């Protein structure tokens, strides 16, 4: 194969995966913020709980 085709597929797959990951991770972060307390009143040691 010429390499062009692979490059095309590669660019598409990598970009879409990257974009999807960024959206999902931002969404997850926002969800965690929404679930957690709004004010930073966490007790020390509590932040490790996932």
């Amino acid at each position, binding site marked *: 194969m010429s390499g*062009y*085709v692979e490059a095309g*597929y590669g*660019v598409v797959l990598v970009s*879409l995966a990257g974009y*999807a990951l960024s*959206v999902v991770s931002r969404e997850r972060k926002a*969800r965690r913020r*929404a679930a957690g307390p709004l004010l930073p009143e966490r007790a020390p040691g509590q932040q490790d709980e996932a």
Partner: protein
Amino acid sequence: MTRSRILTTTGVLALVGIAATVWLGLWVTPNAVNFGDLVRLLYIHPPMAWVAFLAYGMAFLSSLGYLWRRTRDPRLDRLAGASAEVGVVFTGLTLITGSIWGRPTWGVWWTWDPLLTTTALLFVLYLGYLALRRVPGDPEVVARRSAIAALIAFVDVPIVYFSVSWWRSLHQAPTVDLSGRHLYVHGSMAWTLLLGFVSFTLAYAWLTAHRYRLAALADREADEGLRQALDERRAEGEVLV
């Protein structure tokens, strides 16, 4: 949580579909006469373009809905923003794959082909739209001016396409000559192409839904902040009563 399940299913289907498209596209389908293995780009490039236009159409329709007073709803604004952003990603990919196609076919990375040129202009148009959306302000004002910008941008699309193709037809560039290189799409090729369209459309739906959720969460967070600010502001008066 059925809605979540539908979304997850869509995502899985999209993933499987894209994987199958790649597999069929790269290894199963035959090379085409005149095109060699470049024909394999056919399974991803047109679907990219289709999704981009679909996304902009969606953004246009929801902006229109937002502007019409009786259907005004912040959800429509969010959908417009989400769809346009996904559209910009796919437009970028359309340009890149088109360019990759063009290099071995025509010997140049870029040709002023009507579709390619229109797509490039679309890319900048909607980058501007997204830039406008990011300017902070009163949520309602932002939504309204974004909707108007989306309207103006989308109306421009057919005019751009028409003018560029007319412009091109007057300047027959000798390097690009598709006449006589008929491409017969048949059998496994047709199925792969169809699969490409379907799975990238599903991917669009999945991405837009998640982008929409992200926007909804951000909005809810802002609302929460607003409630808190409102309480604080009201308390300012309390001290004096």
